[in-house]
């Protein structure tokens, strides 16, 4: 590693501008508990550059701010969540737009057609009292003008066939399907209007392994077919390894490491990432694995400096005082750790 080029001066290999970009994004929950104001720093100065036609994985444990980050990326900031600073830009053909400057109507028009969101636990988002074909028809008639219900049904059936889902599903009610099937129907619905960006929040959690594989297969299939971008949030590092092109690791509201999937798994630099990857049990290898000591900090009461310093095996003096910036250590590897700088 060349030390002189350390401070983020690496040449950008991919000259294409990112499709989604954030600058110093800060979104906090401001709560009023018995007259005392409490601030939950869920997303704290996040800079992302997500490229066109990639699967960008975001990993981290529960309560680290993953879902809040997705809400902010989607432009869905509602109280008690507040935007405290920073911006999110989408690149639509010809220009770059600031999401938080858009009107409600403009945002509505971008949704599903430009950016689609598959929420967590999406097996329970389908309307339980209507058949799936009606959900599809409502969806189509509210976003595509000049289609009759019969046309909408044809589009829906064609779309299902394309994705390899049985057509008879359209005549079923959500409760008649298994969790994995509902998840796949929701993903298919999100892909219907060919969005450029799809955001998936824990799409494989709470599913059986074989079904998980089916869901990942469907996401990958859609991504290749549409050539779009998928932002995939999951804490399951195995799923990340299987589908993501680049992975960002989030800890206590911050991105602490970001690299290509091969780099993250082959050469993790942040001690937290190392714990996360090395603690995964592997088949054919029964050597003892250890978890990171201690437990994750509360977002309401973050420690000074680096949020990981209380659990870190080799804390420096600087770590206690100052948060390390996320800097590039190689052309496609950024890490926020003072130790990585020492190296």
């Amino acid at each position, binding site marked *: 590693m060349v030390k002189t080029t350390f401070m983020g001066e690496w040449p950008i290999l991919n000259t294409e501008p990112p499709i989604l970009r954030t600058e110093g994004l800060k979104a906090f929950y401001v709560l009023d508990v018995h007259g005392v104001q409490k601030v939950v720093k869920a997303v704290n100065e996040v800079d992302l550059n997500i490229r066109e036609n990639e699967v960008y994985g975001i990993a981290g*444990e*529960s*309560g680290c701010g993953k879902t809040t980050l997705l809400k902010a990326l989607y432009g869905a900031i509602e109280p008690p969540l507040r935007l405290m600073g920073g911006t999110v830009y989408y690149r639509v053909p010809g220009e770059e737009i600031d999401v938080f400057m858009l009107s409600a109507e403009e945002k509505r028009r971008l949704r599903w057609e430009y950016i689609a969101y598959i929420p967590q636990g999406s097996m329970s988002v389908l309307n339980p009292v209507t058949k799936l074909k009606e959900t599809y028809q409502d969806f189509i008639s509210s976003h595509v003008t000049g289609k009759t219900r019969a046309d909408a049904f044809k589009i829906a059936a064609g779309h299902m066939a394309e994705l390899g889902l*049985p057509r008879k599903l359209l005549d079923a009610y959500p409760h008649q399907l*298994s*969790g*994995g*099937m509902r998840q796949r129907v929701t993903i298919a619905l999100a892909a219907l209007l060919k969005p450029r960006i799809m955001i998936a929040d824990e799409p494989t959690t709470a599913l*059986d*392994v*074989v*079904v*998980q*594989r*089916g869901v*990942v*297969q469907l996401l990958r299939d859609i991504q290749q077919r549409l050539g779009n971008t998928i932002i995939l949030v999951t*804490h*399951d*590092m*195995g*799923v*990340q*390894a*299987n*589908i993501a092109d680049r992975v960002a690791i989030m800890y206590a509201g911050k991105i602490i490491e970001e690299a290509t*999937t*091969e780099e993250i*798994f*082959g050469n993790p630099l942040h001690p*937290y990432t190392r*714990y*996360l*990857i090395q*603690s*995964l*049990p*592997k*088949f*054919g290898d*029964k050597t*003892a*694995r*250890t*978890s*990171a000591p201690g*437990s*994750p900090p509360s977002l309401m009461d973050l420690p000074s400096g680096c949020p990981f310093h209380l659990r870190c095996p080799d804390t420096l003096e600087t770590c206690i005082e100052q948060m390390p910036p996320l800097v590039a250590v190689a052309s496609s590897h950024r890490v926020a750790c003072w130790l990585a700088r020492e190296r």
Partner: protein
Amino acid sequence: MDKLIEVDQLTKVFTLGSIISRIRITATDHVSFYIKPAEIFALAGESGCGKTTAARMILGFEEPTSGTILHEGRAVEYAKNKKGRGTQDIQAIFQDPFKTFNPLRTVDRYFFETVQNYKLAGSDGEAIKLISDKLNAVGLSYEEFAGKYPSEFSGGQLQRISIARALLTNPTLLIADEPVSMVDASLRMSIVNLFKKLKEEFNVSVLYITHDLATAYYMSDRIAIMFRVNIVEMGPVERVLMDPKHPYTKLLRESIPEADPKRRWSGAVKLSDVEYEEYLRQGCRFAGRCPQVMERCRGEIPDEVYVDQVLVKCHLYSGTEETLDRKVS
């Protein structure tokens, strides 16, 4: 004694509805296995395969429709038929540590209650000594625990606390139902390691119920794979998971996402379209998705045979069994 728990031909059928329209749901169908002292036995399978029902019957929470459960040679009774308190020797740990404890009560009250119920200590001092011993065993101290509410602990700490509570009665068997699936990824292995430590230091057996084959491989000695209410493969974990015999175990094993970007999934997986059809299927329930399906699989239920000391319930191996000696492993 070579068998701590012996479950034989355990069947549970739930019935729903009235006399006029009755639905029968089979949860476990002739399930047999045993657990040796100081052994971690994993019961793995998809949701709805009957693994939790089997555990609840061992705990006495459900009454088996047929079959027997022997604990150290004595039959385990259904809790409602028993006069006294539940057995001290079998204790349970549940999936979600946040739901295990009432958020409005301090966690130490659960400990003192258990001590009282089983009359484990004569005085307060003795009780505190017992409780802090058990907390030390799971890596916590009495001082950081006393008088606190569940919300003051992290998920990993709470799960340790519920393990410590289960240890109060010096059980010989812990039944852990998905104990790590709700615990943060960075703390998960510490709980898994704790079970291994309890087995080694206190000779506690663990019935580890999970759908996560990777942790099952890491911590258990023997494993049973369940599919749609039956055990389809059972044996030493090394043999079952490193060299799976049943096509379903093979599929499961292949579908586990490995944390290695160089080894991604290849090829498509066939999922069942309509799940309940699988439960109703005659013959082998995996026949609809099995890549090696034969004509007889659709009609006949396969026998359980031993291949290479592993029990397999599949027609591919029918007639190839070495011996039907059940004491082999």
